């Protein structure tokens, strides 16, 4: 779509930018093919593709427990949940494609290690209770973020979020139900649930991004209606919902400074941002394994994709007999 992505050196840039910002201020959605600043496009490609990669990499920590799910019902739910994540990845890759980037380019960026994905998936899933905890905390945090992004000014991303949030709500619900059941279960189940909460609480807070003061992209993203709330605001919403619910199960949270302030907000103690940036920078416990698993699937699938292309080029399908 040449000419649709404006840069400050374009003669009519200031005029077009003013029109663009006025549209956003009126609450209109920007659609594929509309004029938009190149920087708006760049930021959206970055965010949507990161989001898609997060869904795809996010299949790994949970997918690893499908073969060990302890009941027929849990097994069914977990396969469906991981399948949903693949579906979200596919949907988001398509949303990013509307901005003129191909899935192959995005995959290449992921597999080469250039593209980022949510740092939360670089933590290991050590026990079965992690599956419930991921649903409750990680999907819970994701829903807060995605509900905000459903208001996003870019139409395809906004609509993707509406649809994805609906499914994530089920993921959240089954996770919460599981952790509550184990909190009321045997001593071993309870201990397993507590251990999982202890390990996932801080990474869940971190996954909502750095504090506003340290978030380099936030200002322009808010002005252009890509983000409609700051990281700290979304984080506060997440804690206000989840902290009291977890404490109500009788499980504890691994933050001795956690308390409710006079306004009713649950205040957390200091977040270990050193750990966050270290994981983002590639030094989390699972960064190398996650990327390696994606690369292996891609490499081992190469002959399959080649066969598909060769077959499509021949086009002599056998009449279907079912």
């Amino acid at each position, binding site marked *: 779509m040449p000419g649709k992505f404006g840069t400050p050196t374009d003669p009519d840039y200031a005029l077009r930018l003013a029109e663009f910002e006025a549209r956003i201020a009126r609450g209109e959605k920007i659609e594929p093919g509309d004029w938009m600043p190149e920087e708006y496009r760049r930021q959206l490609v970055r965010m949507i593709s990161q989001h898609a990669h997060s869904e*795809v990499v996010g*299949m*790994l920590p949970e*997918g690893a427990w*499908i*073969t*060990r*799910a*302890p*009941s*027929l019902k*849990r*097994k*069914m739910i977990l*396969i*469906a949940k*991981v*399948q949903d994540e*693949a*579906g979200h*990845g*596919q949907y988001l*890759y398509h949303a990013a494609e509307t901005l003129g980037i191909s899935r192959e380019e995005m995959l290449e960026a992921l597999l080469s290690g250039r593209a980022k994905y949510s740092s939360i998936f670089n933590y290991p899933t050590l026990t*079965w209770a992690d599956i419930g905890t991921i649903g409750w905390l990680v999907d819970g945090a994701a829903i807060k973020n995605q509900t905000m992004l459903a208001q996003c000014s870019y139409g395809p991303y906004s609509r993707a979020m509406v649809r994805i949030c609906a499914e994530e709500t089920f993921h959240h619900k089954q996770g919460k139900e599981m952790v509550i*059941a184990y909190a009321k*279960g*045997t*001593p*071993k*189940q309870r201990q397993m649930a507590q251990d999982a909460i202890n390990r996932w609480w801080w990474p869940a807070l971190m996954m909502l991004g750095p504090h506003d003061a340290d978030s380099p992209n936030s200002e322009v993203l808010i002005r252009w209606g890509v983000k409609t709330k700051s990281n700290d605001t979304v984080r506060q919403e997440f804690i206000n919902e989840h902290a009291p619910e977890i404490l109500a199960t009788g499980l504890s949270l691994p933050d001795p400074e956690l308390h409710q302030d006079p306004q009713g907000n649950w205040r957390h103690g200091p977040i270990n941002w050193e750990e966050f940036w270290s994981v983002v920078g590639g030094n989390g416990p699972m960064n190398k394994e996650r990327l390696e*698993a994606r690369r*292996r*699937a891609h490499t*081992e*699938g*190469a*002959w*399959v*994709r*080649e*066969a*598909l292309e*060769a*077959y499509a080029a*021949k086009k*002599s*399908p*056998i009449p*279907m*007999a*079912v």
Partner: protein
Amino acid sequence: MSPKAQAALIAKLTALADDELILSHRDSEWTGHGPILEEDIALANIAQDELGHASTWLSLRQALDGTDPDRLAFFRDAEEFRCAQLLELPKGDWAFTMLRQYLFDRYELHWLSAATASTYPPVAEAAAKILREERFHLQHTQAWVERLGQGTEESNRRLQAALEGQWGYAQQLFVPLPGEEILVGEGIVPELRRLKEDWLENVTRHLQASGLKLPLPPGYQPHSREHHTEHLWSLLAEMQSVARWDAEARIW
């Protein structure tokens, strides 16, 4: 139903469920590791369907003898399982997985179509319901066999190798359980020997049209569902590890 027929039906329902459960397990191992994202979605869907079918057959058994489906799935040992050995084999490459699913889908389609006429209404109803899903599976796997068979030299070679590895095992799907003739006599389940001809004709035609070489040497053909491959023990050790981890746990 006579006590003898009931015992035979319980055994048959268990074997049907075990086939689905173990196949679902093998398919689900691909989730997150498929060759393209769309296939992660499709195969996860098939794995869910097969798991759902296992639950259906186990609930039919539960109606007869009251056994809890989860106890059967997660607390039986390998020698108590009655799955066919084909379904226990490790997932292999994409050609191996798609071919196994195809051979099994084709067998199931014949079995279910015939079983919709069962004189035992719960079997007839379950078969009709499952049949609707199995048609989609067969469309999907049949198309994959064709694409891989006619794709590249490598995909054809891999598919041919998978076929040679699975052909003998697939024949076990048509070996009746001890006592199954009572059920056939009462019209409760179809006779496997008669289904086999249709199956053989259909798969031979499709495999040959897809560029595969048949006939094949018989290979190893397992007979009794009381015997298993060396893979089943470790598959169950993994599958049952959480359920058996806490002896006191009543709810998972």
